[in-house]
């Protein structure tokens, strides 16, 4: 998987993409983003549109539909795959504005790649302010167009020169990350046991990283609070593991980091999140199989080997955890997942678990374990759970 990197991304998606050049690109220069073949793809599509117009035909752009309803779950492959549905954007009076904005965004991307430059989503939004009538009024508009462009070319937005603003996640424990000095190119060994009460931050681009570790497993944690507690008490020493905090729904970089680490070192990934529909269906599901929004990228941004340590609905019963009632949004999310989420629907265990949650109509946070003592999670809960990893939810 890792070896394939992004160079064959088009082929990996099952289509002999007209954009994707066969020859490999110097991945080092721009990390994973194969600048040159993206450039070619951009030119090819622009050429196509240009020709159509000169032939007095209305040009069309086809975008994969970016939603959960347009993904398939392949248990063998382990992630959400994009299903065939595409939306067509034909240039008409009604679409002319978005069409123009999309092309200008593509042009911006081309400029970024050519100049080996990058822009955050917000910066791209500000660049559009030079586009007069075609400018975006709000950032969500430009984000959507950017997501469309990304899906159109079936690439990761970093390959288009656009980088996310969000932080990747925090790491502590038995891991040495090998990065490279930007100026000298010299290898940098980053020892994640040596951050004291702090942590190593996952960078936005992780493709160049290499790893050394003797850890038995990776524990991926939802909340910064729980991560802090485990770091503070050097839990990684005791359990011989790597701790990673996601801080909510994991970013692409965080998913990719965990994936590469777990793949290359062949160690299991255990996920520890709040026992509520959001923790299960949004955070865990996205980490494990990806999202509906960027399905063309899920193959790389997912961690199929992840399993669910807790907090399970059964934990709420077994550990007599203090709970909160499910809110309407929770109930809706849980019901939606049972009905529409291809991953949840594939696993009877998950359907049962979510149904139990709905039946009890409660949720429990990770930190609810503190009811039995602040370090109960370290001394009792995690050790108990880790004794039977085969019982983790899929």
């Amino acid at each position, binding site marked *: 998987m890792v070896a394939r990197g992004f160079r064959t991304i088009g082929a990996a998606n099952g289509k002999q993409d007209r954009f994707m050049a066969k020859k490999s690109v110097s991945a080092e220069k721009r990390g994973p983003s194969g600048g040159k073949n993206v450039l070619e793809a*951009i*030119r090819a599509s*622009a*050429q196509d*549109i*240009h020709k159509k*117009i*000169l032939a*007095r*035909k*209305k040009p069309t752009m086809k975008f994969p539909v970016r939603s959960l309803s347009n993904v398939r779950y392949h248990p063998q492959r382990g992630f959400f795959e994009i299903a065939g549905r595409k939306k067509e954007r034909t*240039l*008409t*009076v*009604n679409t*002319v*504005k978005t*069409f*123009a*904005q999309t*092309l*200008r965004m*593509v*042009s911006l991307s*081309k*400029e970024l790649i050519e100049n080996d430059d990058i822009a955050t989503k917000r910066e791209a939004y500000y660049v559009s302010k030079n*586009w*007069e*009538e*075609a400018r975006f009024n709000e950032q969500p508009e430009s984000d959507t167009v950017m997501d469309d462009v990304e899906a159109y070319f079936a690439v990761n937005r970093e390959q288009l020169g656009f980088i996310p603003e969000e932080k990747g996640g925090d790491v502590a424990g038995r891991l040495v990350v090998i990065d490279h000095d930007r100026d000298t190119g010299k290898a940098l060994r980053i020892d994640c046991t040596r951050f004291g009460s702090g942590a190593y931050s996952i960078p936005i681009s992780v493709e160049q990283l290499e790893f050394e570790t003797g850890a038995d497993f990776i524990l991926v944690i939802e909340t910064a609070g729980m991560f802090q507690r485990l770091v503070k008490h050097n839990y990684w020493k005791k359990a011989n593991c790597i701790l990673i905090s996601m801080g909510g729904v994991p970013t692409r970089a965080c998913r990719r980091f965990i994936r590469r680490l777990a793949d290359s070192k062949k160690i299991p990934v255990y996920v520890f999140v709040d026992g509520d529909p959001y923790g299960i269906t949004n955070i865990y599901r996205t980490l494990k199989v990806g999202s509906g929004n960027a399905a063309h990228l899920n193959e790389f941004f997912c961690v199929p080997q992840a399993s669910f340590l807790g907090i399970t609905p059964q934990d709420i019963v077994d550990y007599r955890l203090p709970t909160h009632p499910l809110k309407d949004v929770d109930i809706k999310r849980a019901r939606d997942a049972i009905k529409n989420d291809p991953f949840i629907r594939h696993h009877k265990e998950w359907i049962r678990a979510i149904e139990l949650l709905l039946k009890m109509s409660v949720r429990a946070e990770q930190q609810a374990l503190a009811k039995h003592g602040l370090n109960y999670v370290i001394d009792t809960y995690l050790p108990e759970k880790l004794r039977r990893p085969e019982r983790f939810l899929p």
Partner: protein
Amino acid sequence: MIASFMDLGAPVSSSKSRSGGSPQLDFPDMESLPPEAKEEPVEPPETRKRETAESMARRQREISISEFFSKNRHLLGFDNPRKALLTTVKEAVDNSLDACEDAGILPSLKVEIIQIEEERFRVCVEDNGPGIVKAQIPKIFGKLLYGSKFHTLKQSRGQQGIGISAAGMYGLLTTGKSIAVTSRTGPGKPAHYYEIQIDTRKNAPQVITDRVVEWEPPHGTRVEIELAGTYKKGRHSVDDYIRQTAIANPHCEIVFSVPGEDGPLHLERGSSVLPPEPKAIKPHPYGVELGVLIRMMKESPVRQLGAFLQKEFSRVSSRVAQEICGEASLKTRANPRSIAAGEAERLYRAINSTKIMSPATNCLSPIGEEQILSGLKKEIDADFYTAVTRSPSVYRGNPFQVEAGLAYGGTLPGDELVELMRFANRVPLQYQQSACAISKAVLGIDWRSYGLSQSKGALPAGPVLLFVHIASAWVPFTSESKEAVAAYPEITRELRLALQECGRKLASHIRTHRRAAEEQKKRSYIEKYIPHIGIALREILGFSESAENRLVETLKDVLERSRTA
């Protein structure tokens, strides 16, 4: 309604309770009870001097109608200084318009409001009407309930014979000044100038001055009243009243001057066609009340019941008269004067259970769709106008006719509640909007289905002016100050139908208008955004500027074609 006015026509006795039944007739408590009285401790009943029938009898006496109204001036629209000014102008202008139309003269009015002191004004209204015969002048301006319109059933602005003398009385009460009248009945005749005061105890005129004067107009009347009042623009203002009068009466011309403005405002004539002359009709039997019926039988010179019914009422043929009498088990030859109370009641019920033809409607003179449009266009700058005149209908034996007009867009404010103009017999109604059948009908319609926004229980919002007119030989006002129309089901129904028709026309206008706007928007979209496609493709592909221009032009052309196709 008629009955309650008939009652007022005779002096009101103090022991008689108010039988009018309309809520506006309630006396304000301040009149009878000074505010400080409420603060004082109530004396124990034992120490109070008891009244005897005799002691009360000494204080029981006739109350003159003018005394009654001077104490209850709110009944006539003089409840506060601002409204008093408006009512005064209104009474004089209404009379002038009535007189001109009756005489078949296109009205030219001069209305002047002169500020004398902070809260004192002189109102002058001059018309080119037929003038008033010398002998009548004192009674018309110095006696309440004296007029030419009360006893005839036909559409007119005035109906009670109170209006102008009440205004004069109010002026006298608040300033001590007489009402001044100049009138000439024709070229070559002298112009008479009168100063008159009303003696409220006697309800009789007192002539202060009576002389012949030099006066230019060949015929007409000029009325001047000095009164305590306040002048303010905006809602309920005299300015509003004059503007609305001009809209509902496009055949009249008004020169209007107010304090604080340089020159007078000329409201031009929008049409030189006089409204058709309404014919006077006899009352219809369905509209008569029992008390009135009894009185009519007492006063009629006709000696046989059947003939009485035929003569005093409209639409009663001898066959119908027979039917009514038969139903009431009364002889057609019975003497109306000797009908007993019980018999009268039978007669009254028989009238209402007999099928009688609807009254003639030529007593009505609607403004007409064309004239409404010309009035609206003259005074309102809008994009779209429409008007509807319903055919005549009848409530309680009274013919009436409803008309509605609507102006939309243009300079009308788009984000406010619509402006509702109510008219009765071409007179703008400005107060008591919420009590009025017209407003209730407007509120009862779902204007959202006609393309306006409307929150629950509110007037619709949007750039709309609504014009609603009800014409009737007897407009059922909710009070003597003639500010709101009573909601008879027949009237409400006609109002609704007229408004809905306007609404439908508006909706179709808004629809086509929107289509045009969308069309416009699409065109501008092409102009705006296609150049950006050219820019982007040129940036990506690096072709020449002329190639870019060619591309943009081609694309514009392709889209234009597909749009119009």
